[in-house]
């Protein structure tokens, strides 16, 4: 109990050192920088992916083009209605415009990677197959044959 004993000296409580706090936060920062990817486009359609237990992970994210299909988000429904629409990049497009989109995406890739190009169809679970069949036919016409039906693993 010597600590409490020497009443004569004026010992201050040592300040909590915050020097390591920044290191901890930086560590967190690096974790998030590594595990996440930049959000590229703003969603204009609501996509609630269907569930499938046999999903496989996408290997090369950089070789993937996304086609979003679903009904417009609530703030855009006044303008566009609730009918299912196709979103490419940042705007609503028609089926015919997929051709240009695929061509543009192809051009952006290197010669070697073009054969591995995957088109990910991210469609809402409530969308009718008609629009998806149209998209699939158009993709076949552009010979973008490698596709993926985006789905999520059901929560166990």
């Amino acid at each position: 109990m010597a600590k409490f004993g020497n009443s004569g000296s004026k010992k201050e409580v040592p300040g909590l050192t915050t020097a390591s706090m920044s290191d901890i936060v930086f560590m967190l920062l690096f974790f998030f920088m590594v595990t996440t990817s930049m959000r590229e486009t703003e969603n204009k359609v609501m996509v609630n992916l269907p569930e499938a237990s046999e999903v496989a992970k996408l290997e090369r994210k950089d070789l993937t083009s996304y086609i979003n299909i679903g009904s417009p988000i609530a703030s855009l429904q006044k303008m566009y209605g609730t009918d299912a629409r196709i979103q490419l990049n940042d705007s609503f497009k028609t089926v015919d415009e997929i051709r240009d989109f695929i061509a543009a995406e192809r051009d952006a890739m290197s010669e070697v990677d073009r054969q591995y190009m995957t088109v990910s169809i991210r469609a809402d679970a409530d969308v009718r197959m008609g629009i998806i069949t149209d998209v699939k036919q158009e993709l076949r016409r552009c010979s973008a044959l490698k596709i993926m039906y985006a789905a999520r693993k059901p929560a166990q």
Partner: protein
Amino acid sequence: MSKKTPELNSASSADIAFLLLSYFLMTTTMNQDSGLQRRLPPIPDENQAVEDQKVNRRNIIIVRINSADRLFAGNEPMDVSFLKDKVKEFLVNPNNDPNLPERTPKEIEGFGTYNVSKGVISLQNDRGTSYKAYIEVQNELVKAVNELRDEFAKAHFGKAYLSLNEDQQRIAREAIPQNISEAEPKDVSKK
């Protein structure tokens, strides 16, 4: 006594790091892309005469989903939960049923000959079918093939398919091919 160098005040560096951290939290996404991968058939050449690929009747199972999301497999209505077993039976043909697909021996590199089923699953859908039902059926078909590959792997390599090495996985893939044909869309509204 030498003078102590004044310490750099590092209290704010944590704040700066937090700011950066929250910036990355806002602008990035973490979602893993996953899905069912497929290869679409190339579009048939218009100049080429349309030759009907006559697949032997017994080698094909037609899985059809109508606009009310009802499922027909091999011309009988069926619940999705039974589809997997039906497809597995179709692909395996354990009793050499003449109505189920034939199996022909095929030389697989690095394994030997194996009786590979010639069965093809033809998936047809209506324009009014919901995407959810479609994916559900696709998923069952993939599941059937995956389970067969797993059984093959267990029987021949004593391990689950996913823990095989790349070469063994290729053998299993060749022994149990995933022949799912997504038919040309046709007008099925009159049905």
